[in-house]
């Protein structure tokens, strides 16, 4: 297979499908209780040096509680999948948890602006980067989910995004057209936040899935954080709506409001005031250190964080905002 051109970016994971198979061969398929605290799940399944991917869309259905816990447990030298990442990236950059990033979208929070701290970290030279696009990384997860080492796609050709990527350009043997091959991305560990899960890891997502269906399948280890634990019958009564089957999951953690201050579709809208506080506080290193101490390091659980930022009243306010109804809660 003649490679016509290739990016100079490094691959931070091995796309070898047979090696992945050997890993998956040993992964448990038992339908057994995987419920544990988030603290235990992060301690057990996220290791220094791992390649980590975070589900959701940066600040939508993103396991923010898990990102805090990773920072709190002071994980270091992770490789990070910077796919649709916004607030998740901002948190992990604040903890300097990673030193390698596959970049599609980083340092920004969309319409909210850019993270000073994340940007500074990415400009420091301390972080090794390889460049992609959101769809490139989705396609890389899809290749892994398919159990192969690459898939062909049609973007990035002719651009610097290709030049700094780890992709390879070839000619399609059926049509003679050019394609770029995306190497499979098998993360060591991922965290995905869902609406409902049972104790075995069967999970349901409502609303957009972004790239999480492929991510769940591509990941060697998978931590599910869920708004609610529900009975297994919930799944067995409507198997059409299962997003993630149990055998993909290694740990299941019940984390209500686990996406706060982000948006959880159908549950609560994002807390824009709090996002603004993050972005503003970041500009003053000392103030930001105190901010992190207050909001992450000194918290035992996600409930602590929520209590410090408006508590249950705030949650119900965000719920009303999400549903676009008047707030009837007291």
């Amino acid at each position, binding site marked *: 297979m003649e490679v016509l051109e290739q990016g100079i970016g490094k691959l931070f994971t091995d796309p070898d499908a047979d090696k992945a198979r050997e890993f998956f061969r040993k992964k448990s398929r038992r339908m057994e209780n995987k419920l544990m605290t988030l603290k235990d799940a992060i301690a057990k399944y996220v290791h220094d040096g791992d390649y980590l991917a975070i589900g959701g*869309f*940066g*600040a*939508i259905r993103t396991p923010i509680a898990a990102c805090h816990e990773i920072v709190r447990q002071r994980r270091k030298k992770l490789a990070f999948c*910077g796919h*649709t990442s*916004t607030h998740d990236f901002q948190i992990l950059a604040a903890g300097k948890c990673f030193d390698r990033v596959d*970049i*599609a*979208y*980083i*340092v920004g929070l*969309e*319409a*909210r602006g*850019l993270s000073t701290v994340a*940007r500074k970290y*990415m*400009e*420091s*030279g301390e972080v090794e980067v390889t*460049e*992609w*696009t*959101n*769809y*490139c990384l*989705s*396609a890389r997860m*899809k290749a892994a989910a398919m159990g192969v080492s690459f898939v062909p*796609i*049609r*973007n*990035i*050709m*002719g*651009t*610097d*995004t290709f030049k*700094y990527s780890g992709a390879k350009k070839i000619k399609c043997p059926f049509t003679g*057209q*050019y*394609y*770029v091959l995306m190497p499979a991305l098998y993360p060591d560990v991922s965290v995905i936040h869902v609406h409902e899960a049972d104790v075995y890891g069967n999970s349901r997502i*409502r*609303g*957009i*899935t*972004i*790239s*999480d269906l*492929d991510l769940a399948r591509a990941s060697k280890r998978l931590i599910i954080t869920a708004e609610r634990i529900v009975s297994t019958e919930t799944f067995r009564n409507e198997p059409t709506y299962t997003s993630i089957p149990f055998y993909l999951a290694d740990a299941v953690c019940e984390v209500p409001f686990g996406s706060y201050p982000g*948006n959880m*579709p*159908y549950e609560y*809208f*994002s807390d*824009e005031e709090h996002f603004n506080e993050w972005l503003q506080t970041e500009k003053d290193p000392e103030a930001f250190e105190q901010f992190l101490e207050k909001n992450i390091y000194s918290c035992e659980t996600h409930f602590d964080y929520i209590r410090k930022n408006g508590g249950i009243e705030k949650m119900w306010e965000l719920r009303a905002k*999400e549903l*676009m109804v008047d707030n009837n809660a007291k």
Partner: protein
Amino acid sequence: MADYNAMEMMICSAARELEDGSTVGVGTGAPCAAAMLAQKTGSSNLTIMFEAGGIAPQLPEMPISVGDSRTTWKAVMASGMCEIMETACRGMLDYTFLGGAQIDMYGNLNSTRIGDDHQKPKVRFPGSGGANDFGSFAWRMMVMTPQDAKRFVERVSYITTPGWLEGGDSRAKSGLPLNAGPYKIITNMAVMDFEPESKRMRIISINHGYSEKDVLDNCGFELLKAPRIIETSPPTDEELRILRDEVDPLKLVIGR
């Protein structure tokens, strides 16, 4: 003539480009406002798609994120990244709006970095996100941006998202989908398209209140000129009313 600001002018210009019965992939902010305005002014059968998965929502207000709940409000489908990008790659996405820190004469966009050391850039921007994807796949890519010579540069220092690459047939030869590429560049001063052979940016209309000289002075490269340059139609009262009252009543975009 009605009183309006530059952002309102750009949004109205952009909205008019969106043919009824077509599909458009948008981000937050001005592009989203343009698509919403188009739906309320003649293109009621315009389908909006968001990269995170929202398809054909009835947007109740401006989204903060291309993935937030508003992007699937009364949508016909809540899908995912691959669904959207592969729909675009199959040739079902007509328009997209993109932006960047820099744009060059061929419509190439830089949203990645300033500075030569890739591993230690002077300024780091977010990167492609879904921009390169939409820009590679949508039939017609458009840009809405304020015009100044620092932004409109001869060659972008880093091509995040492909325009016509090096012009001529270079994009067709690259392997990117055929016959797709930059279409219109809409600024506070003018509307540009691309000369069909060379694929170089050229002025096709100038906004009221600006001269050709303004446009040329605020561009870092030599702009071509269409055989006939007209004045961009200013926003109508009706467009402004809908934009202000229905599309962006909180002035999140037009208040800037």
